[in-house]
């Protein structure tokens, strides 16, 4: 790095510090800005931030190494990341990656954590976990901006634009078009209009009344876990603390989920209104919207909504003229870490640290951001809460089941005619969704994302509800032409990549599981390996520290039970096979000695009693 660049980096950091403050909790936000500007976080920035924020350079580096979108060494001026969810793969992403690599004269294939960087620094190609464009994939991110609906032609054009060095602002606008694809409107989606009605009701009737309505509605968290919203709000309200915080979890990282993206696009006012109502109920003055890095393109839109609402008196100081009702929201960006969807990891990330799950208890409601009482709710939950306060708890209860009031917004993708957003009353059976979205010959549905459950046709009469099939909203469909092992491989690699590494079972077990899945997929597995997969999966499920580790083996365990043939048809005949390919293990020695005689090879195991003929 030459001196003139170093000055620029330091200058940029200094400016960022002036604009965004020297709170150590803003470390991650500073890093994201530096990364965005310089395609990496140069040493000079590490030093400058370390000095300014009272964090060690090691802590800065540790944060960079944790988040997939931050790097110490430069990526390309065009940093391209293909979304690598199974749904992208089903839409042909692998072929398109190869095509782009060929056009850009790169060699090899990118893997998670391994980007291809062209020598001239012009471009790099890597992978990203699901970018939330499953209904309009294959998708990629270029310098953080989402490009959808990739096909050979579009990839070809992207290669041209990169070769010619055309800045992103001059790329065709349709590349960046993101559709909402709302296919079925229910309780929440029917009416995006918002005029601050919930806030008016809050002001008119008081916080107790608003909380009572949320209680009456039976609203439960839409992020998947289903904790009763009113109880969460009440706990937080009653917990001792100096400050209180409202956090909207918009880190929609679960593969196959994209409904929050749509809600933040077309229903942002209602989401923010829900947050503001929550602030009024619990007595918070500050809130955060934690937006996953993949959705950074929504930032200007969301900032403008916040700005407009401030101007309209719906946010900021003296909301709706009420003395003492002050609440404002900052948007914090994520930087490529699935674990940050877990509420305590999200709070760590909000505080600028590596997104490692906190020990619980204490739960965020008593000790969250800055160790103060904090409500963390999903985007959809805040949206529903705003409507509940506006229209009353009974309105939500009008739909759904006893234990699951209201509706659920599903992100439907995979093998169906009309992928997109579908809102259903809780209690809707799976087959109804399949028929509405035009799915045929369905072999399996992966519900609630990679961490969720794999459903076989025997499950299609089951209902979407907390008491039967709880879901954060991901609904990925696989027809009978698919090899489900491709899904398992994708998810196993995903979890190994996304484990935060804090606890042993998830950190090590996830990697062991991925390796075994790959071994079986390569046709080198045995019955013993399947029993090992069950064993490791069981240990992860029962012994991991947080939900990520508990749910990470689900897809393997579910498919071993329901779709054993996807494994069995690839097994070797032996009960046990080596953990590595024996003949390949002599490759280096062969190269070093120049030998290729019969003794320089190891034959695959020959089952007893069977002789091979030449």
């Amino acid at each position, binding site marked *: 790095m030459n001196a003139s660049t170093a000055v620029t980096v330091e200058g940029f950091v200094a400016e960022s510090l002036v604009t965004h403050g020297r709170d150590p909790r803003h470390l991650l936000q500073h890093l994201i800005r530096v990364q965005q500007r310089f395609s990496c976080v140069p040493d000079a920035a590490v030093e400058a931030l370390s000095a300014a924020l009272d964090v060690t350079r090691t802590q800065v580096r540790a944060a960079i190494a944790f988040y997939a979108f931050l790097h110490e060494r430069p990526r390309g001026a065009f940093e391209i990341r293909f979304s690598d969810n199974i749904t992208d793969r089903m839409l042909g992403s692998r072929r398109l990656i190869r095509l782009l690599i060929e056009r850009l004269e790169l060699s090899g294939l990118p893997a998670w954590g391994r980007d291809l960087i062209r020598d001239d620094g012009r471009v790099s190609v890597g992978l990203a976990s699901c970018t939330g464009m499953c209904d309009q994939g294959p998708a990629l991110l270029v310098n953080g901006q989402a490009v959808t609906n990739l096909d050979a032609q579009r990839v070809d054009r992207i290669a041209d634009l990169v070769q010619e060095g055309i800045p992103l602002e001059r790329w065709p606008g349709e590349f960046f078009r993101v559709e909402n694809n709302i296919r079925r409107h229910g309780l929440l989606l029917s009416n995006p209009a918002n005029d601050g009605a919930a806030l008016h009701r809050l002001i008119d009737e008081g916080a107790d009344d608003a909380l009572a309505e949320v209680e009456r509605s039976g609203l439960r968290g839409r992020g998947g876990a289903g904790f009763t919203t009113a109880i969460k709000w009440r706990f937080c309200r009653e917990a001792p603390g100096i400050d209180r915080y409202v956090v909207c979890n918009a880190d929609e990282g679960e593969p196959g989920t994209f409904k929050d993206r749509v809600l933040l696009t077309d229903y942002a006012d209602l989401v923010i209104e829900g947050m503001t109502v929550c602030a009024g109920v619990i007595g918070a003055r500050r809130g955060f919207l934690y937006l996953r890095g993949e959705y950074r393109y929504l930032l200007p839109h969301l900032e403008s909504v916040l700005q407009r609402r401030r101007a309209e008196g719906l946010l900021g100081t003296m909301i709706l003229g009420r003395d003492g009702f002050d609440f404002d929201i900052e948007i914090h960006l994520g930087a490529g870490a699935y674990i940050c969807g877990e509420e305590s990891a999200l709070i760590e990330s909000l505080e600028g640290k590596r997104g490692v799950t906190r020990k619980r208890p204490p739960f965020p409601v008593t000790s969250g951001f800055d160790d103060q009482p904090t409500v963390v709710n999903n985007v959809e939950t805040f949206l529903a809460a705003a409507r509940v306060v506006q229209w009353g708890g009974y309105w939500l209860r009008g739909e759904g089941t006893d234990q699951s009031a209201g509706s659920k917004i599903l992100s439907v993708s995979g093998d169906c005619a009309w992928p997109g957003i579908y809102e259903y009353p809780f209690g809707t059976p799976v087959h109804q969704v399949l028929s509405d979205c035009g799915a045929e010959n369905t072999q399996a549905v992966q519900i609630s994302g990679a961490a969720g459950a794999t459903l076989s046709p025997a499950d299609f009469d089951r209902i979407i509800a907390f008491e039967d099939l709880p879901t954060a909203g991901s609904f990925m469909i696989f027809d009978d032409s698919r090899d489900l092992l491709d899904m398992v491989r994708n998810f196993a690699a995903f979890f190994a990549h996304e484990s935060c590494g804090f606890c042993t079972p998830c950190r090590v077990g996830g990697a062991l599981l991925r390796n075994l899945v790959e071994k079986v997929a390569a046709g080198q597995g045995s019955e013993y390996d399947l029993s090992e997969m069950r064993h490791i999966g069981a240990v992860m499920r029962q012994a991991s520290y947080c939900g990520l580790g508990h749910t990470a083996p689900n897809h393997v365990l579910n498919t071993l039970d329901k779709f054993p043939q996807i494994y069995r048809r690839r097994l070797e005949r032996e009960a046990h096979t080596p953990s590595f390919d024996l003949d390949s293990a*002599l490759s*280096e020695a062969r190269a070093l*000695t120049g030998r290729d005689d019969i003794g*320089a090879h190891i034959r695959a195991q020959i089952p007893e009693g069977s002789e091979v003929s030449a």
Partner: protein
Amino acid sequence: MVEKPRVATASLCGCFGCHMSLLDIDERILQLVDLVTFDRTPLTDIKTLGDCDLGLIEGGVANAENVEVLREFRRCCKTLVAVGACAVNGGIPAMRNQFGLAECLRESYCEGIGVHNPGIPNDPEIPLLLNQVHPIHEVVAIDYVLPGCPPSADAIWTFLTELLEGRPIAFPYTQIHFD
């Protein structure tokens, strides 16, 4: 007369220390000879392996010949035991996994101090080294493990007598150690 169980042993990539420890059972070896018949083992110098009840493997898997011997033992032995640290987790030889094979061979045969006639041996008689050293359970299924570097004579004795008498194998605390 009932035929005595047949026992075979081999040392793969190890130091023969586990075999020495087996000999350390001292006079109990006479009892052992009453209990079992030795098949292929360095102790008898029998070179070919017949059908056996028990195979004891010392050492990890470091080259093509180790693989061949180990697979033959697995085929011929009803019960196969990993004996000692190298068989159990690769042991000291697996410390070469910190380096590439090329690095190791160049250091040993080309660039190391005191090397004459530098050159990596390539005689077909010499088994090729694997890229890494592996514990034996990564190549074949094993039935029991006996840790230690080496396992003590007492541990080996406990193991053999309990196994041969068909009892569940339980070691006193002091007999189990990884070093």
